[in-house]
């Protein structure tokens, strides 16, 4: 039984990393929706190949599905090029049509074979280790692991070889074209791999999880770094963490593995979104709060500075009346005074608030700007 766990975990991790790596480029090209489209539209390709081979594990299935995936991309782009339909609508028109053709084919010709809708959409990781690769009487492990392992290696080779071309085609396609680095070829290469990855993964984890793993880990990694190379590495790590933690949750609560991994993908994104330094929500809220106090402190020292040494200084700097001069809420005023005292911008002199040398510098600098 322990071995079964390990198999499932390995399949989940390999699939997650394969999806997370390609996903980086889809997220940066604003094309994650295309992976959603491809993951559904490959169905007719799979069904037709299944009719030909009567097997769900034939390599022909992957090729046929990849072909349908690229066809989807071409259809969407052709529709878009008419300028009568925008990209989102073109995607929305294309993939349900192709998916439906697949559904109709199944219901008409393959009513009683193993090709049901639930498995297509959600997959069933728990069954993935049951289909095993055997040679010379030895059990070499689950077929899915080999399929996804090969696809992961393909993706890695593609990204490592064409890293520079992928980067330029994504950042500045027209310069890539002007330099002769064929961004269109790179684009269709990427789309072919997305199709291959999706069809390889769909049998094991289902198309919803494929979309979650293509969009989630890269979007999470994007929050954490501003280097493409690091974004790729982080995306792969986050994909693995999603897979492992999702599997743990599924095991603990005895629920769907694919569902748990998809849910963990979202949870980990939200967690990072909140806590990541500099651009996380908490960091932003803190920065805003600090800016608010800093600004109020600056207003206070400027007020004191403007009246310093003048006859009215005594009334203008009386702590008890400050809120009236500045038209601030009394509670807020005393908080600002405390903040400024803590920062040694001002000091107390009987009932008055007077500037320190530091506070005077702050006021002068603020007024110069």
């Amino acid at each position, binding site marked *: 039984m322990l071995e079964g766990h390990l198999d499932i975990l390995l399949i989940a991790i390999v699939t997650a990393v394969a999806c997370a790596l390609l996903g980086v480029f889809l997220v*940066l090209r604003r094309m994650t929706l295309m992976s959603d489209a491809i993951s559904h539209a490959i169905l007719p390709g799979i069904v037709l190949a299944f009719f030909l081979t009567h097997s769900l594990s034939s390599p022909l299935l992957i090729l046929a599905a990849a072909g349908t995936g690229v066809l989807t991309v071409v259809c969407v782009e052709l529709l878009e090029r008419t300028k009568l339909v925008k990209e989102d609508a073109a995607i929305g028109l294309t993939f349900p049509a192709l998916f439906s053709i697949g559904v109709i084919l199944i219901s008409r010709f393959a009513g009683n074979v193993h090709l049901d809708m639930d498995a297509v959409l959600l997959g069933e990781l728990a069954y993935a280790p049951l289909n095993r690769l055997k040679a010379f009487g030895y059990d070499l492990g689950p077929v899915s692991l080999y399929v996804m392992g090969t696809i992961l290696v393909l993706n890695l080779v593609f990204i490592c*070889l*064409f*890293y*520079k*071309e992928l*980067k*330029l085609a*994504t*950042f*500045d396609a*027209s*310069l*890539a*074209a*002007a*330099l*002769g*680095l064929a961004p269109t070829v790179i684009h269709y290469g990427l789309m072919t791999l997305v199709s291959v990855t999706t069809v390889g993964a769909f049998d094991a984890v289902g198309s919803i999880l494929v979309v979650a793993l293509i969009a989630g880990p890269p979007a999470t990694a*994007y929050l954490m*770094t*501003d*280097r*493409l190379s*690091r*974004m790729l590495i982080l995306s792969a790590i986050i994909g693995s963490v999603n897979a492992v933690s999702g599997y743990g949750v599924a095991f603990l609560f005895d629920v769907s593995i694919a569902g748990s991994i998809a849910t963990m993908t979202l949870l980990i994104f939200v967690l990072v979104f909140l806590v990541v330094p500099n651009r996380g929500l908490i960091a932003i809220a803190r920065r805003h709060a600090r800016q608010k106090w800093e600004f109020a402190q600056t207003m206070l020292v400027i007020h004191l500075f403007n009246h310093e040494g003048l006859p009215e200084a005594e009334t203008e700097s009386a702590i008890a009346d400050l809120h009236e001069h500045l038209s601030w809420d009394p509670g807020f005023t005393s908080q600002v005074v405390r903040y400024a005292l803590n920062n040694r911008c001002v000091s107390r002199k009987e009932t008055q608030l007077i500037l320190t040398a530091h506070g005077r510098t702050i006021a002068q600098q603020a007024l110069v700007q």
Partner: protein
Amino acid sequence: MQAAEQKAIQVTDLTVAYQDKPVLWDIDLDVPPGVLLAIVGPNGAGKTTLIKAVLGLVRPAAGNVLIYDKPYDAQRRIVGYVPQRGSVDWDFPTNVLDVVMMGRYGALGWIRRPGKKERELAMQALEKVGMEAYTTRQISQLSGGQQQRVFLARALVQDATVYLMDEPFQGVDATTERAIVTLLQELRADGKTVVVVHHDLQTVTDYFDWVMLLNIRRIASGPVDEIFTSDNLRETYGGRVAFMK
């Protein structure tokens, strides 16, 4: 053809159309080597399209473009390109040095990665545009003028003979504008040919020595003091320019 008559860029009978709507009508343009040329015309005149057609980025419906007597495909290495700043996503996860090194990708060719040499060339280019202090800065953290300088540095590392620039002055501050003009004039002094899509009619005579007036068709092109006349401008802008001295 003799060297003295050689043209840096030669556009003949170029028509570009989207479906049946012409964007450029039968354009002829000869750019001699070593000039600083402004392409001027109203919005929608086809200025960007002309540059893109020279670079082979849009397919012409008719006509031909030669760079030093050869088609663009054969001359990629000697042509540097500065696209419009707004044409890329500045939130892309990369830094200043990395963007400048992209200018070397063409010379590197497929698969080969940039190395120490590319890094050094990029540093030199960044020094020329006064951005050497920003090498590791994430590109979204730059001002508009700084982004434009990074794009110029990226074209400089291409070490080209002919430069095509799409609105390098768009949205930059006065200091950057001066710095860019100085740089363009240095390029011309080095014998390079520089073609710039330009918007500000007031500065054409100060900055450029050649000008092309474009409004879907070519109105006129040649040395600024001959071509940049109020008659020609009125024809280009349809009588909507009242500023001329």
